[in-house]
């Protein structure tokens, strides 16, 4: 059996590092090339990091290196992305959509490639509601932010250009593993801090709202399996909590129970956010836009890029992912409280392994 020679973008990110470690630990992998803009941790790969940039033609990779990649690479794993929710569509496309196009063009010449794994996001489903199947077609409009749109557009490119594609769609990653350890803050953590600080008084939602969240460990395990498993070309995998997603009401109970454990917070008497419909939430956003301070405006703006998702309840089906991995993702309830406790300082911050 020919061993994999992987080319990985985004290997310096939280999930990317974990994916690369898993690939390196696999006897099926001979070599991993990683692309990095500003250098990478070379000790965890079998070749020095390749300097490059998704925003440059040919990814900015030197011609001799490109020739070597063309001879050796059998598997492309595209993780790199600009994950900011607040960026403009042009900014998001520059890295996420056009970067993917450039990688597709570059890998066109890599004749040994037989698997092209694109790491997308479950939220390419945008503002759809109900059960989102892994085999559902992509929406052509209706996303909550430019990040989602640019990722959906990139998915479309990969599907159109390759016949060997595999799409991995993780849900929101909120902590490293079941310990709740947070190695890297993201929009969810910043949002929780706004609610903790009493600067975010409302949540747009319905009675069916769910929060789907996973750990880095689970997402990386899924992606690595999507790289190595045989006979899964042209399949999409939701690496999501799925049936283990938390109802919003339960998530608020758990979150505010954790907040209440902080004595200083308890004394403030901050009321948990009131749940409301999206129209009312939009009215509030407009009022803050009109007369709020810059600080509150900024808080609302940052939430506005993804919190409205709660008003579009959806559950991600995970049948293909479960079959691929042989089990389901850990339920969000199994790590959410630990994660929040660390975020608000109720427990000592766990050091990353």
């Amino acid at each position, binding site marked *: 059996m020919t061993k994999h020679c992987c080319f990985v973008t985004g290997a310096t990110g939280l999930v990317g590092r974990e994916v690369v470690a898993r690939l390196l630990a696999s006897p099926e992998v001979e070599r991993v090339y990683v692309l990095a803009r500003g250098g990478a941790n070379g000790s965890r790969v079998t070749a020095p990091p390749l300097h490059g940039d998704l925003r440059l033609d040919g990814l900015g990779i030197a011609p001799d290196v490109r020739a070597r990649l063309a001879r050796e690479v059998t598997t492309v794993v595209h993780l790199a992305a600009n994950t900011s929710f607040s960026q403009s569509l042009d900014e998001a496309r520059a890295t996420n959509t056009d970067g993917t196009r450039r990688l597709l063009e570059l890998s066109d010449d890599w004749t040994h490639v037989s698997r092209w794994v694109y790491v997308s996001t479950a939220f390419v489903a945008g503002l759809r509601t109900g059960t989102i199947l892994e085999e559902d077609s992509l929406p052509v409009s209706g996303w909550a932010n430019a990040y989602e749109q640019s990722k959906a557009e990139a998915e479309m490119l990969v599907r159109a250009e390759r016949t060997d594609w595999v799409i991995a769609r993780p849900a929101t990653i909120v902590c490293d593993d079941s310990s709740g350890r947070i190695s890297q803050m993201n929009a969810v953590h910043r949002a929780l801090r706004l609610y903790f600080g009493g600067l975010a008084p409302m949540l747009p939602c319905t009675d069916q709202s769910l929060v789907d969240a996973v750990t880095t460990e689970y997402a990386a395990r899924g992606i690595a399996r999507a790289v190595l498993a045989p006979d899964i070309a042209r399949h999409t995998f939701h690496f999501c909590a799925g049936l283990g997603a938390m109802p919003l009401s339960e998530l608020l109970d758990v979150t505010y129970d954790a907040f209440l454990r902080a004595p200083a917070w308890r004394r403030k*008497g901050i009321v948990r956010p009131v749940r409301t419909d999206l129209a009312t939430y939009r009215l509030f956003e407009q009022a803050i836009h009109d007369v709020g301070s810059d600080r509150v405006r900024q808080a609302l703006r940052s939430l506005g890029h993804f919190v409205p998702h709660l008003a579009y309840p959806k559950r991600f089906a995970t049948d293909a992912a479960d079959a691929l991995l042989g089990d389901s993702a850990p339920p969000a309830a199994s790590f959410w409280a630990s994660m929040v406790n660390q975020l608000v300082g109720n427990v000592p911050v766990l050091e990353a392994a």
Partner: protein
Amino acid sequence: MIACPGISAISYALPAVSRSVRELAVAGLLDSDPEVLERFGFERVGVAIEETPYDLALAAASAMLREHDIDPSTIDALLYGGAPGAIAFAKPRDAAAMASGLCDGHRFEYPATRLQFDLGLDNATVLGLDQLACTAILGAVRLARALCIAEGLERVLCVSSEFYPAAAGREAISNCTSDAACAVLVERNATRNRIVGGVSVTKGFFWGAGSMRDEVMASYFPTAAHVIRRTVANAGWQPEAVNWVMPHNVSATSWEILFRLAALPNARLWSDNIRRIGHTLAGDNFINLRDALDGGAVKAGDKVLMFAYGYGAHWTGLALEA
């Protein structure tokens, strides 16, 4: 049988002069864009020029006694909330100078006791309420109700009067304000406007009205919705039973939001005065109730819910059966 006190009379007084939002903007008395404030429902506010808070208080209370032919000697207690001490006798342009009276011998010259004398309330004990901001009159009514029940008082006159000193602008968290006074008579055996419930929540964390403006603004809605729900429950009502909400006259937009959050499916918001007089620190809810009763909007037996927020920070709800 425990008495169920109610409100048998309401009067109010506004200054002789009023100004439009545009005029206030031209005079540099607003923080916000006047177009935004107009979009929030504000049009005109009363601006005291020659009147002191005490003048307005006396006018409101006198009007009540006169309109309802009330013998002043039958008032058992006077509860006064509003501009404190010497400043209550200041014209807006003199407020800063008069405030120094709080630090000298004028410190003990109180508007409440002077009201008792000027109105001839010979049998009324006097209490002053302070530090409740826009909920002062609601606090006074709450206390009046308790005095009627606990001490058997028959008639308690609640008076509140507030103003904005000339240099203080006319805006409070994006709400245009009128100088005004309001007088409310609570009777132990009132036949109308029985007080059937009330809830007041104070959150000391938000005491710094200026430094915590963002936090106050953010906490306003969830706490207000919470207090409204509790007030309805405290009155023994179901949410769908509420007929009217008598608001404090903050922006119509914020009431549109709060009204949705309050989830009172059959209630109507009586908001006519937001445009006409804006927010008074002295007693929006009761001024509105008086006008709504006079205009025939509120009928006998209607279930009326009042809500107001006051700096400090106080969220207060009151439930009445008209």
